[in-house]
C-alpha cells in the first residue's frame, strides 16, 4: 500500500482475473475472425484486416460495457465485489484492445498515402461543418468520425496510465476519481464514433441493436443503483445533533459493521468487535470503498473492495501501512449505540464503547 509500489501486487485472485480477461479477449477475437472468414468464402471474403478491425472494436466495446456495469452491480449487491476488485485490469485491457483497433485503422485506412497517417486521421475527411445548404442528415452521414475515436482512446490511455495506486496517491483520490469519471465521456465518444462511422454504412440493424443494448444496460444499472442509494439515504438520514442513536446492539453481528448516513451526507461505519463498539468514517482511504460493508479480520476493519485494513480503535492501518481515516466518539446506552456526529481528525484514538450486559445470541444468529 504505502511503503513501496510495485507494478502490480499479485495474488491468486488477480492472476485468475487476468487469465480470464486474456482468454476471453483472445477467444472473442478468434471467434469473430474465424467465423467471419467462413461466412463469405473465397473471392467474397472480407479482408482479414477488416475483420480484425471489426473484431477489436466489438471486443473493446463489450469490455467497456462490462467495466461500466460492474460499479453499479457492486453497489446493488456486494456479491459482485470480486469483479470490482481488479476492475482496473479490465480497464487496461479495454485500452489495449482499443489501441490495436485504432493503430491498425490508422495504418490501414490512412497509411500508404500522400498525407502522413496521423494527420490524415484528422484532415482527410474535413466535413466537420455542414456545407452551405447541406441537410443535417447528410452532414452527419459524412461527419469525420475518426477523431471521436482518437479522443476516446486518449482518455482510455490516461486512465490506463494512471490506474496504478501510485497515481491515486499522488494525484489525490479526488482528482483521480474525477479523472476516472471521464470514462463516461470516452464511452459517449465511442458510441458517437460507431454511430457516425460503421452504422452510416448499409449494415444490419443488429449492430444498432447491440450498441443500444450496451448503452441501455449501463444507463439502467446506474439509474437503479442511484435510486436505491437515494432511498436508503432518505430513510437513514440522521440529524447531526449531539450524540445520535444510530443502531441497536442486537442489530450488529460480531465482526460486522453498519453504514449510517448523517443528514449532511457523511457516512459513518459502526463496527462491533467482541464486546466493543467503534465508529469510523465509512470512506476507505484507498478508493473510497464502503468500509461499513467490510468485516473485522485479524482485529482490523477490512475494506470490501481491495482489503485495506484499519484498526477500529484509532482508524489507522496496521504498520507498515500508514493510511488513516476519521474516527467518531461512540457510547452504548442500554441497547442503543450512540455516536457523536463530529468527525475526529484521521487516526485519532477513541476508546471503544463496551457492551456490558446480556445481549448474547445476536452474534450467533
Amino acid at each position, binding site marked *: 500500500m504505502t511503503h513501496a509500489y510495485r507494478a502490480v501486487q499479485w*495474488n491468486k*485472485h488477480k492472476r485468475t482475473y487476468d487469465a*480470464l480477461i486474456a482468454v*476471453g479477449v483472445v477467444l*472473442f*477475437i478468434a*471467434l*469473430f*475472425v474465424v467465423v*467471419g472468414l467462413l*461466412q*463469405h468464402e473465397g*473471392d*467474397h471474403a*472480407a*479482408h482479414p484486416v*477488416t475483420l480484425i478491425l*471489426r473484431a477489436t472494436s*466489438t471486443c473493446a466495446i*463489450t469490455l467497456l460495457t462490462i467495466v461500466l456495469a460492474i460499479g453499479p452491480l457492486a453497489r446493488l449487491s*456486494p*456479491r*459482485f*465485489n*470480486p*469483479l470490482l*476488485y481488479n476492475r482496473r485490469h479490465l480497464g487496461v485491457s479495454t485500452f489495449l484492445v482499443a489501441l490495436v483497433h485504432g493503430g491498425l485503422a490508422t495504418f*490501414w*485506412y*490512412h497509411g*500508404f*498515402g*500522400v*498525407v502522413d497517417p496521423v494527420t*490524415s*486521421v484528422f484532415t*482527410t*475527411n*474535413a*466535413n466537420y461543418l455542414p*456545407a452551405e445548404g447541406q*441537410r443535417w442528415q*447528410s452532414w452527419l452521414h*459524412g461527419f469525420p*468520425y475518426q477523431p471521436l475515436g482518437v479522443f476516446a482512446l486518449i482518455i482510455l490511455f490516461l486512465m490506463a496510465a494512471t490506474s496504478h495506486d501510485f497515481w491515486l496517491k499522488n494525484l489525490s483520490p479526488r482528482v483521480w476519481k474525477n479523472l476516472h469519471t471521464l470514462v463516461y465521456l470516452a464511452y459517449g465518444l465511442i458510441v458517437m464514433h460507431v454511430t*457516425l*462511422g*460503421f452504422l452510416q*454504412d*448499409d*449494415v*444490419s440493424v*443488429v*449492430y444498432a441493436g*447491440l450498441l443500444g443494448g450496451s448503452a441501455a444496460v449501463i444507463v439502467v444499472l446506474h439509474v437503479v443503483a442511484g435510486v436505491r442509494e437515494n432511498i436508503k439515504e432518505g430513510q437513514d438520514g440522521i440529524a447531526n445533533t449531539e450524540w445520535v442513536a444510530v443502531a441497536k446492539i442486537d442489530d450488529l453481528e460480531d465482526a460486522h459493521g453498519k453504514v449510517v448516513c448523517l443528514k449532511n451526507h457523511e457516512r459513518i461505519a459502526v463496527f462491533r468487535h467482541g464486546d466493543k463498539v467503534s465508529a469510523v468514517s465509512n470512506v476507505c482511504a484507498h478508493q473510497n470503498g464502503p468500509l461499513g460493508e*467490510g468485516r473485522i479480520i485479524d482485529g482490523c476493519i*477490512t475494506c*470490501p473492495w*481491495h*482489503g485495506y485494513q484499519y484498526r477500529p480503535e484509532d482508524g489507522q492501518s496496521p504498520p507498515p501501512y500508514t493510511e488513516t481515516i476519521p474516527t467518531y466518539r461512540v457510547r452504548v446506552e442500554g441497547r442503543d449505540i450512540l455516536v457523536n456526529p463530529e468527525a475526529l481528525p484521521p487516526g485519532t484514538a477513541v476508546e471503544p464503547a463496551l457492551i456490558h450486559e446480556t445481549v448474547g445470541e445476536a452474534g450467533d444468529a
Partner: protein
Amino acid sequence: MRDAFYVGYLRMPKRLRAFVTTVVVVLLLGAGAVALVATTQQPAPGDGTWDLSEKIKVTGTLTTEPYAMLTVPGKPGAPPRQFLLVTMGKVGGAGLDLPATDDAVSITGYPIARGAAGTVLLTVESPEDDVAVSGKPVIARDPVPVALGTATLDGEIVDPKCYFGAMKPGQGKVHKACATLCIQGGIPPMFVTTDADGAPAYYLLVDEQGHGLRGEALHALLPFVADPVRLTGQRERVGDLLRLRIDPRMIERR
C-alpha cells in the same frame, strides 16, 4: 451475507465462489454470443480480388490522358481493353514516371479484378523492372469515344483500386477517408451506380472536356467521395470503359 465477504488476498468463501463463477460464465457466454451475432451479420464485401501471388504481363499503348492507362486490343469484335495503372500504395499512375512513347509497352503488374468487370487495374511495383518499351510499332490505337448522351445518375464516388479489390470492403463511410486519400494521391475517381437493369455500372470521372480531374477540379470533388451523390454529365464509351464528363463544382448530395 457473512459467507459473501471477500478480500482479494484471502480464500473466497464457497457460496460466493459459486456466485462469481456463475457470473463469469454468463459474461463469457454473453461476450461469445455478441461476437457470433456481430460477425455473422457482416455485409458481403463483394467479389473483388487483388492477386498479390502472381503478376500478369500486358502489352499495349500507354496513355496519360485522362489518366495513366494501358490500351490493349480487344478480342475480335470486342472494343479495346483499358487497364488503369496505379502504384502499390495510394498513389496513381502519374507517380510511376511512365515513359512518353508511341511504341508498344509491356507492363507486368498485380491484377485487381472484380466479378463481371474483370481486371480493371494493374498495380505496378517498380517502373524500372515492370515497364518495358518494346520498340515495336503501335499495336492498338486510342479507341474512338462513342457519345451516349447526357444523364443524371445516383451513386457513390469510389477509388477503383480499393473498390475493385484492394480493400474489402472498399466503399462506404468507414472507407471514406481511405478513398479520399487514394483519389487525392492520383488514383482516378470512379462513379459506381446501377444501370437500367439494376446491375452495377462504373464510370471513370473526367472533366467536361474529357481530361483527367486534377488540381482544383479534383479538390472540388474530394469532399463528396464515398457520400451518396447525384451526378449529371455526358456519358461516353471509350474502349471497354464508360466515362462521365462532369463539372465537379456541380456535384449534388442526396
